[in-house]
């Protein structure tokens, strides 16, 4: 059973049949999700009201259209946040291997941080974070 779920693709003689385990896992994942969705549909309690059919049933009556033009600053801040947030994630593996990587690792991370700072200085100097014009 374990053999069936282990793909050995790096050894010589790999054929497309070696990918059978991956196919089995995909089938399992799809089957499990489908099964859970269907079973909650039958088991859970149901109370149908008109409010529950609204898109956001948060208690406050919704009004207006959400498709209005928004200030570009929102998008800019959001995309910059994602950018810098994802870069911070790279610190995590470094923090775990802090001792093992020694000074070489330290200088590599310093280089990374300096690139990071360059980008930060660039967006500040370009005025990407200024809200009032």
């Amino acid at each position: 059973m374990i053999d069936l779920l282990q793909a050995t693709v790096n050894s010589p003689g790999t054929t497309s049949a070696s990918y059978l385990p991956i196919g089995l896992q995909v089938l399992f994942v799809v089957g499990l999700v489908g099964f859970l969705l269907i079973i909650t549909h039958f088991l859970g309690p149901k109370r149908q009201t008109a409010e529950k059919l609204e898109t956001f049933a948060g208690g406050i009556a919704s009004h207006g259209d959400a498709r209005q033009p928004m200030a570009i600053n929102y998008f800019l801040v959001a995309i910059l946040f994602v950018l810098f947030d994802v870069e911070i994630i790279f610190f995590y593996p470094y923090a775990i291997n802090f001792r093992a990587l020694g000074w070489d690792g330290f200088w590599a991370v310093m280089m990374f941080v300096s690139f990071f700072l360059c980008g930060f200085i660039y967006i500040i100097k370009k005025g990407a974070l200024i809200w009032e014009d």
Partner: protein
Amino acid sequence: MNALIISAVFGVIMMFTGIFVKQKPVTRNIAIAGVALLLLVNILEMSGIDFFKVHTAGFMLFDRFALLFNSVAFGSTLIYFILSAPDMEKVGHYYADYFALIFFILCGVVLVASFQSLLILFLGIEIISIPLYILTGSNKRNLISNEASLKYFLMGAFSTGIMLMGITLLYGATGTFDTQFMNIETEGTSALVIAGMLLLFFSMAFKVSAVPFHFWTPDVYDGCPTVFTSFMATVVKSAAFVGFIRLFYDAFGSIHDDWKLVAAIITALTLLVGNITAVFQQSVKRMLAYSSISQAGFMLLGLLALNATSKEGIILYATAYSLATIGIFAILLKMNDHSFESFNGFARQQPLLAGVNVIFLLSLAGIPLTAGFLAKFYMLKATLESGDFLWLVILAVIMAAVSVYYYFRLIQAMYFKEGDGNAIEVSPGFKLMLVIVAACLIVLGVFPNLLLNWLYF
């Protein structure tokens, strides 16, 4: 490796130049110095001086072919900057950022020219494409520029998706991304390999705008600000070709017999459609867009033949085509509009510019004594050496004759038509540079080995 790191660093330097330097000529000179430096360090690397000892772990291979093409690309970019950089000022406010994006594109060009792993090919193609989407749409108030940018983005993203699918299938079939170690069997090739190879072929055909994947090209080249069309149609296109040939030489050379008919049909279609459509164009810019498709047809012959001559040929072709096209675009940029009529009577106002323009056009048409002739000759020779495609060679020669019609229409307008045209102002330095480019084309047309010997020594 020199050029890869320095081009990326220079991209960042240009970004900061935009903040700290307000004078446009200073920005321009920094960029020109940067490209000159890139050319220098790349030539140093060709003679064995490598500043950065980085272990590429089989991801990249800086062989003579890659390094020589890098030199050609940097040289063309240097000429392009000297000739056309002042015209970038008219496009928009972010002068230094345009240079930064071009440096990042050069970084991608290095990756595509020297990849050994399919991952690096993908990365390089993306690093080339994404700054180009921005440059295409850089004329923000112009609707046509926006349309071109969106079209290019959608088509580019789509073809990149196809490429990734191909890479995935190949990985599934061979278990490696490394093109040197795929070891695809000649007999009984698995269907996964064939499917992956075809997907890669189609996506690369998108990038080099081969027919029937060319529909985005005229619109994008026409809508893009003319300065950037010049760069896009030359350096970027030849880089995509070098990547294309490198990929098929390394990975699929052993199953050449399986795909050469597909390549032959696509080549024939590209030659036919590119040339015939170019005949009917009324705008010089759009004519050059179709001419770039037809020139792509000739470069595809090198892919089809896949031998040592075709490697030499593609380098010579990239040089001849890039230099001539950059020159014509530089002159076109000085005109007020892009129709053939605006060139009427040009020879009387600007005899020197008209003269060098004739040399560029003759080179594109492939008339002897110019580099364009020898480039076409090498391509046809490579095809004949590989055997069984005599009909394609004959078709290519006929199509080269057709191309003479639309290139000579411009010469006819300049010399034999009356008109006041546009009185244009150009600096002596601009004229000198154009004369140098024309001289390069003629010298390479007589002594191609000045360039090609670099492949071996």
